[in-house]
């Protein structure tokens, strides 16, 4: 059985999904990639925006579409997360 994701795992999954798309992603795509309900993803995104890990940008000719961007702080967070995972694996925690 797959291990239940912790809060920090979910956050990193969201940020990694954005990173894998070159640093910007459409909300619907993110919803699919993050494997979360719409409600939960909205809550997480609000928190990530508050912490300046992601940003939003309005795009499209009619300026009616939204994209989510990974900030520098977001990239730093992912780097620390990978470091933590390596340490965790290495020490068998």
């Amino acid at each position, binding site marked *: 059985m797959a291990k239940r994701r*912790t809060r*920090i795992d979910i956050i990193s999954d969201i940020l990694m999904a954005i990173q894998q798309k070159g640093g910007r992603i459409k909300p619907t795509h993110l919803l699919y990639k993050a494997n979360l309900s719409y409600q939960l993803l909205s809550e997480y995104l609000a928190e990530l925006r508050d912490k300046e890990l992601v940003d939003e940008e309005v795009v499209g000719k009619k300026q009616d579409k939204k994209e989510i961007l990974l900030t520098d702080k977001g990239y730093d967070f992912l780097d620390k997360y990978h470091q933590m995972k*390596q340490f965790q*694996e*290495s020490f*068998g925690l």
Partner: protein
Amino acid sequence: MITLIFSPRWFFGYDIIFELLGVIVTLLISVHSHRLYRFSKDYTYKFLSLSFFAISASFLAKIATNFALYYQQTVKTAFQELIVKHNLLDKSNLFLQAGYDAHRFLMLLGLFGIYWLVSKSKDYEHQWLFGYLILVVALFSFSTYYVFHITAAFILFFIARHYHRRCFGKERAAPVGTHLNFLAFSLLLMSQAVFIFIFLNNAIYVIAEILQLAGFIIFLVNMWLLVFRHGKTKD
């Protein structure tokens, strides 16, 4: 009267330098683990940080005690005193006893903390029981130092066994860091096993110290790979 100095005279000071490296390495792991705790708020990292900090403090206690002991020896020798049993001290020397008690207690506590984490045990009754037993061993092995080394070797054996399973078990291949940790803990286990027999010959003390140093150097390499090299490769 209890024998406290097992080091050959020519090795005085070298063991202190070796153990200073132990302090630096364990402190490095402790600080890094604490940083990960602050990042993730996961108590596992805080507990690991405290365990390595206990080992670090344990070595500091031993260094301070050995330093005082070696200094006494040097002063006595400088004044050309006829010291037939220069490696024997009176049991009433409270500073030395407190120093070695602290060293033993903190070392066993730190090792047990690591064992507890890697074994992922949730049995808190056993935790208190082992805590009590560690205290007993630490406080009552002043004159029978080998009891401490046997206990430390036992705990290290179980830690090393855990890493051995992770490295060579049927699960997916373990990362290099796990292999390095297995090697480091195995070297520490060997050093504690050798320390048991230091009453036989002074040279055995040197061998045990070298094995311990090798263990800490492996930890240092692992930390370099995990922290510093990771930092460089991200760019």
